[in-house]
């Protein structure tokens, strides 16, 4: 009975007023239904979000896959205190950051990352011919900012989230978020004027 309530309210993109036990009693079939819903609703957004951290298409796809598998495995830990979207995004953000911090990324992928960056830049430069130059310069400049500045710009301007939402997602207080946004814009301005 609870399961149906959960699945029903899921359609709205968030769960409202569901008891703590609900997710725990989900059977495998229900968990799969939830996974499918999550992927349909948030798959594309999560893939972009992860890309904004790792700046590499294939790595973003791999990590997105891992993130959804992780969610499936941790569904029983979702207590309904936060919106499901917030829960999922936090997992995605932490997973992306863990990857960036990992030994594997720092020691094995470094040279590849550089080449991928150059490829991305090349592709973008080709597109520059066709499209507006300054939009692309802006994106390149943002993708080259340090993570802590890139993420606030992305979440605030691309995803249109509020300062409060940002604060919850990245686990910093609103003043820190504000300071980072301001600093990010300063850095961006400097780099674009170079």
């Amino acid at each position, binding site marked *: 009975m609870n399961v149906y309530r959960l699945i029903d309210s899921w359609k709205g993109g968030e769960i409202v007023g569901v008891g703590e036990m609900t997710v725990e009693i989900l059977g495998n079939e229900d968990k799969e239904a939830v996974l*499918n819903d999550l992927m349909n609703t948030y798959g*594309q957004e999560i893939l972009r979000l992860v890309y904004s951290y790792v700046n590499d298409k294939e790595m973003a796809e791999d990590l997105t896959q891992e993130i*959804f598998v992780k969610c*499936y495995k941790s569904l029983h830990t979702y207590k309904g205190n936060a919106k499901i979207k917030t829960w999922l995004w936090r997992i995605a953000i932490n997973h992306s950051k863990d990857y960036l911090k990992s030994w594997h990324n720092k020691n094995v992928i470094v040279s590849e990352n550089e080449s991928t960056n150059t490829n991305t830049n090349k592709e973008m430069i080709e*597109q520059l011919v066709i499209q507006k130059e300054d939009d692309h310069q802006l994106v390149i400049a943002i993708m080259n900012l340090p993570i802590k500045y890139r993420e606030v710009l992305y979440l605030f301007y*691309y995803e249109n989230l509020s300062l409060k939402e940002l604060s919850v997602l990245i686990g910093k207080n609103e003043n820190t978020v504000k300071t980072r946004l301001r600093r990010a814009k300063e850095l961006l301005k400097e780099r674009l004027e170079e």
Partner: protein
Amino acid sequence: MENRLIKLKKSMDQTVFSNLNFTEQHQNEIREKAKNTIENDNEITLAILQLLVNNRTGHELALLLNARGVSKFVDAEGMLYTLLHELEHDKCIQSNWNESKVKYYYLAKKGIGILRKSEIKNTEKQVSLKELFGGEA
């Protein structure tokens, strides 16, 4: 600057995100992995015991576990060796060095017992029992 940032969505959608798509194939792969993922440590231990019906090296185990959906050891084989060490300490498994100085793990008596009990509980896993007792199960 602010004006340009307000158009960031459009700018990114037309550049870095232009060929970034979460496809049906991605979804299928995720569903497949989610289903095959073995969820808790008990199940991982059991999977190790099942695989040690035959002698295996740690590296072989890591690969075979990955094939079963236990991916946590892929970039962290050290964690697997810690677990193997614990299992050996608990006398569930034993190990030996072969003539080419490779360490092999295999089931000890206690491990066989645990495996047998779990097989009785779970009929799905009878395949490895058959392996263990030459097809009598």
